[in-house]
């Protein structure tokens, strides 16, 4: 049997890696990937905490996957739009709005 903490640790690690990807990579698609990692980390938590006989965590994870799909679709659409205008999807090069 696996100690439940290990799930949490893996999840935390996954979350942090996702976060690191979001924070450090310039490419917008990579950032989306990082976000997916973070969502997966959360999902892992939900499932690990799902008590026997309960389905709440499982359903939560399912809906998260659905949402992730929707988000990825819209996100990629936006990224494509950005690419169309900027010819790049490096976030640091997307700086038209000045204050």
């Amino acid at each position, binding site marked *: 049997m696996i100690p439940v903490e290990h799930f*949490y640790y893996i*999840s935390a690690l996954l*979350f942090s890696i*996702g*976060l690191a990807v*979001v924070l450090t990579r310039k490419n*917008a698609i990579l*950032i*989306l990937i990082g*976000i997916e990692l*973070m*969502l997966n*980390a*959360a*999902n892992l*938590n*939900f499932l*690990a*905490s799902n*008590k026997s006989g*309960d389905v*709440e*965590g499982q*359903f*939560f994870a399912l*809906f*998260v996957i659905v*949402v992730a799909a*929707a*988000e990825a679709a*819209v*996100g990629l*659409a*936006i*990224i494509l*739009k*950005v690419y*169309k*205008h*900027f010819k790049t999807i490096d*976030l640091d090069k*997307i*700086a*038209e*709005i000045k*204050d």
Partner: protein
Amino acid sequence: MDSLTDKISNNLISLSYFTPELILIAGLLLLIIVDLLKKKNLLFPLSLVVLGLATWQLLISWPQEALLLFEGFIKLDQASTAWRLILVIGAFISILISARGTLRSIGEFYTLTFGIVLGGHLLVLSSHLLIVYLAIELMSISAYALTLFTFDKRGSEAAVKYLVFGAVSSAIMLYGISWIYTLTGSLFFLEPEFTGALLSAPIVPLSIGLSLVLVGILFKSGAVPFHVWSPDVYTAAPTPVVALFSVVPKLAAVAFLAKWFLVIHLFGLGSIDWVTILSILAILSMLFGNFSALRQQNAKRMMAYSSIAHTGFLMVPIVSLSEQATRGLLFYAFVFLIMNLATFLVIHFFEQKQRIRNIKEYAGIVKKYPLLSILLVVLMVSLVGLPPTAGFTAKLLIFTSLWESYAVSGKPWVLALFIFGLLNTVVALFFYLKIPFYMIFRSMESQPVDNETNSFPYENYFAGLLVLALLVLFFKPDWLLGFINKINFVF
């Protein structure tokens, strides 16, 4: 466990209480169909009719008691109905603002607006964190796309920034929810079991988890330090969309924050001093919003910072933690809705009519549009929070409840919030007066773009009506407060 049929019938019963939202969903579908049929002219009136219907439904189906619907996923009560009314009215006015310009003939604009309203409704109704997450995502996804509706470079930039920030925030929030689930085993946050579990939960993971959840809410309400998306988005998005953003998702998030804050405050029994935390965040929001607004050149960007500051003000009644404060919050929200939307209405008008974006370009506009300029002055006065406008009454109410709260609790940060909040008015004055300043004190540098002779557009009536409402609400706040007072807040 109930039998299957029971559950189905329960859900069916629940649906009958869900008419406003059903109308919205039906409207959403209808609008898609109408759009597909290329009946562009129908979109605008139809959407208004749907929203009107929803409003009417909300008014006639005023709940007499709190109801748990859909297996307890949402809780229908009077307060949430009031909030939903505010949201629908906000969307209604936002769509009215879009009457001028190209936006009104884009079907997706309506679809996504309805998506945001629906998300807002679900958020204020929710009693389960799954619904919260879904509602926030619904609003967010619609919002990301709406940001892009100028279809230009800046729009896409704002959208991608909004997307990155929003997705990260919701992922963080989701992670927080997963922790709370770990700690409590349940996500029905209005249930006593949930509260009990929170009370007995270990402090360290609990505080981390709750903080993570807070991120998502604060992100949606545009509070410091999760506000950074809003200036860019407000600058780049079409004005009616900005108007919508400035009220519907924000107020929905604030309404949820008020509800959520009561949950995590645990009747003051919890060991985490959320009042102080939120007070500090509110102070920071006001300071950051107001001071950043000082140096803005772009009218909409200034309004973005203004709305950040207003989020700070909206948090004031939340930390006051009293029934009266919640009433004040509703009042403030309603007044904020009117004055903010009216301001965007005027800004939108000038943007469309005179291609005015920067504050300096307002120079001398009073000559051409005297009435609208005067109305804008009154609106600014109201946004500052000076008499004789409802902006003052709203501030008076929320700070009164804050004062009472301080008198009871004696928390120093609450006092700081009280003083900073009021002093911020002075700073606010400085930038809000900028537009009237240019409008009235400076003369026009270049010829107006549009030399149309009609200097009495319909916006005059519309803005006039809204401003009148602000004035009336100052002189007779009882009329609205009497209504709000009837709302039964169940804690």
